[in-house]
């Protein structure tokens, strides 16, 4: 009970307008996630997992309710401020990697640190790529790397900003079992060694069960679950 609260929501609700009318994707979600915890979010396709993840990370503004990230109320912040917070607290890993194709692997990893004006960006990036076992591929472009290698670069990039919370949206979704395992191993290792909070959306029940907590998303509602 003495752990700090990393992330907390109160009655988080999100409604979008689409061509067919208003659609409420998230319907009053209350969660509290402590620093260092690893949390899996599972649920059917289209249930709103990605939307929740994005809002928790401050990628967009929720339409109602409250999100508090390390005592910052995201709901009231401008995009400019939210971006700064993201740079400071948040790291991301995506299903389809999303590396910048025109930058080399090491340059991709340097990006977060460079955005913060860190002079040591390059050394840090090289160190991180070594950690994920890619020290020999520093100057390769994403298209020259396999899917698993690309995701390892993405992990190195996610940890480059020394984030307090790492968000991952189906990080193994595009990988085969072998590569998926390597990635998961890396994620949990880094999570432990850096004390990072991990929030992960996944369809993979074994992966979900490796996390401290499991949350089940269904029809815009979130329940604490046990797999």
């Amino acid at each position, binding site marked *: 009970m003495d752990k700090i609260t990393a992330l907390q929501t109160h009655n988080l609700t999100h409604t979008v307008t689409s061509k067919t009318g208003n659609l409420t994707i998230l319907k009053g979600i209350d969660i509290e996630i402590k620093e260092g915890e690893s949390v899996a979010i599972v649920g059917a396709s289209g249930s709103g997992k990605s939307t929740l993840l994005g809002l928790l990370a401050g990628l967009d503004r929720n339409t109602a309710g409250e999100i508090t990230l390390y005592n910052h109320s995201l709901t009231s912040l401008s995009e400019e401020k939210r971006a700064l917070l993201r*740079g400071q607290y948040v790291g991301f890993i*995506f299903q389809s990697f999303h590396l910048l194709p025109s930058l080399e692997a090491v340059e991709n990893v340097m990006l977060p640190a460079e*955005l913060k004006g860190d002079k040591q960006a390059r050394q840090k990036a090289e160190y991180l790529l070594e950690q994920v076992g890619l020290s020999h591929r520093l100057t390769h472009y994403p298209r020259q790397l396999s899917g698993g290698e690309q995701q390892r670069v993405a992990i190195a990039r996610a940890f480059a900003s020394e984030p307090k919370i790492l968000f991952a949206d189906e990080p193994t979704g595009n990988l085969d079992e072998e590569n998926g395992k390597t990635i998961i191993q890396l994620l949990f290792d880094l999570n432990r060694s850096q004390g990072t909070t991990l929030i992960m959306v996944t369809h993979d029940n074994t992966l979900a069960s490796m996390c401290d907590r499991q949350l089940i998303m269904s029809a815009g509602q979130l329940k604490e679950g046990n797999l």
Partner: protein
Amino acid sequence: MSFALRFILREIRSSEVITLIIALIISVGTVTSISLFVDRLQLSFEQESANLLAADRVVRSDQPIRESWKSHATEQGLEQAERTSFATMIFANDKLQLSQISAVSASYPLKGQFLVDDALFAQGHPSTIAPASGEIWLSSRLASLLAVKIGQMVEVGDAKLRVSKYLVLDPGSSTSAFAVSPRAVMNVTDLAATHVIIPGSRVRYSLLLAGDRDALQQYETWIEPQLKEGQRWQTPKQKGQSIGQTINKAESFLLLAGTLAVVLSGVAMALASARFVKRHLMQVAVLKTLGATPRILAKLFLLQLFILFVVGALGGLISGWFIQEGISSLLLSLMTTTLPEPSIGKLWLGVATGFISLIAFCLPLMIRLIQISPLSVLQPSARVEKNALVIYVVGFVGLYGLMCLYTQGFMLPSIMTLAIAGVGLVVSILGWGMFKLGRWATSGATSGWQIGLASLYRRLTPNLFQLLVFTLIIMLGLILVGIKTSLVSDWQAQLPEDAPNHYLFNVQADQVAGINDISQRLNLSSSSWFPMVRGRITKVNEDLVETLYPEGTPEPELFEREMNLTWADHVGEGNQVVAGDFHDQGISLEQKTAAEAGIKMGDKLTLSIGGLHYTLPVTSIRTVDWGSMRPNFYVIVPKQTLANYPANFVSSFFIKPDQAQAFYQNMSRYPTVSILNVGDLLKQIQTIIAQLSQAIQLVLLCILAAGALVLIASIGSTLEERREEGALLRVLGAKASLVRQALIVEFGFLGLFSGVIAALGAEASLYGVQTFVFKSAVSWHPLLWVLGPLIGVILITSIGVFASRTVLKVPPMHLLRDF
């Protein structure tokens, strides 16, 4: 932000950025080369006109030139010369003759040159030196009338002067062609000794000035307020109005044509930007998740735009400079003088074009890029696509603004905009119908025809857009061909090869037959003879003209001096009655002169001719084609009014250079007849026309380049999709030749449709342009209906198949790889 620079450098190699840069270079280059070239023409025209004026500027006065005017000119660093013109008797060998004498200072003329000769009635050699003190130059006519030869003495007032040359042309006086008295030029230092100028003499004092434009401009603003009645500031522009108008007309035409290149480049830029934005949306969203703030991203992309601008504008300026240098040197063979260097100041128009183009075509799209929600990394439907309308509005406003900037008005841009909007509407309706028809006529996918036609309908929106773009390009090209033809023929009609290059005036009624004889023997073409009687207007209705203009305001030219009146049975060539009827019961006035003097139809004018007064109503107003080089008159009066006065006759002739000597010699039998050679002036006008035609070719080339760029850019935006389809067809067992056939059918029909609609649109816009802008007769252009579809099919099929050649090469494996 070292990564920003890296990011940009990497991007510069991408095809969109290259398209953007090329488009910028084309639009900046086109506008730059046009504005520089026209500037050079204008400068050269001003210089040539200055030759007619013998100076860059002249202050003319009926009082001696004030010392302060001269000293101020010295302070401004201007070159100066003086000319004093007056009419007086010259005596020699017991003969006397009224003559028009110019007494000039040693530095006269500042611009242009005298033509003098040692033989009577010869063509003359150039001389930039004024007669020395103690010498006088007599026109051949004057020398014949006085029966003196070179080396003999004549008396002007109390001074005795030696005839040292025969005067053929005094550069500063060539425009007062209709002066009655024969001319002579002497040195101003001898003027005092003559004692002919006494208070009350009718004398015209001129201070001639030359120097750089700024100094002259400053001098003008300084002296204008000091000018009183009888004093004028003369510029070369006023002297050669018809050439000036030709150049102005040509400039707005060239820039209008250039606008087409700018529009096309703009479209290419917009297409490339749209592709750029599409490719980068996800990247920007990712950067945002990594903590890139909107401000950082704005900086990043503004920096990118700025680098683009610098590279494109510099490239455009440099290529524009070389292009106009190129045409100028091509023209060197045609011209007697080299064109003056263009002014660097004219580069701004090209720079402004590049800047406005980028702002109008790239910035809105870039803003859209920056506004993407980072959530779209996780949820693609979270993208913002709201402000599409803003993008079109900004693009349109930018283009319209540019067009107004070029043409200095709203008329042409509005016609063009309406034409484009109309074409857009027509193209959408027709295109939709034709695509649908093509689709209906074929079903299944067994032949290239069916696949090609079906694909036109399937990609309806992008194809309608391409149809519109292609139609516009072909239409603009056709319009240009049409306008060029009508413009050049307009000019040529104005100044045919055999435009009159000599005026004969001071011809007595009984000499007309003899001169006609000479003209027939030498086989010369001539205009008819116009009788001329001197007179002046003394009253408008009941008011004396002196009372109409308060002290200090300039008098209209019509009242200022005696002028030449003529009569005519019918309206002359190049004259057009715009109000009233031309008949022998009243006065016919030239439109501008009438407007300047504030005279309306029905006003009664009192003319003083030979001491008698006649009061007649104004019964018609005419426009006169001053560019025609035929004798023209401000005032035409009824025949019966002039019948009792001895008339001088005037006519114009075309004399080929090799006939000139024979003609002058024959004419020495009529020493009282004045001959004015305007051949040089004509040559100058014809050179300018040649220069302008050349410039139009250049603009056509620029437009073609921009058009090809649009084609390639617009095909590029559908390339991904086409590749996938090509691969799919191949997977399904289609041969590459079938895919190629389908492509040819698709682009061929697109080209055919564009060509037909373009011919329609071009015909309609030419109607508009001919009617409202050039005010020339409307004509039908059958050529366009052949050229349009032909060019459409050939150009679009070849560029289309070329630009999508990779579709044929995609291995079917392509489908399995995910991008």
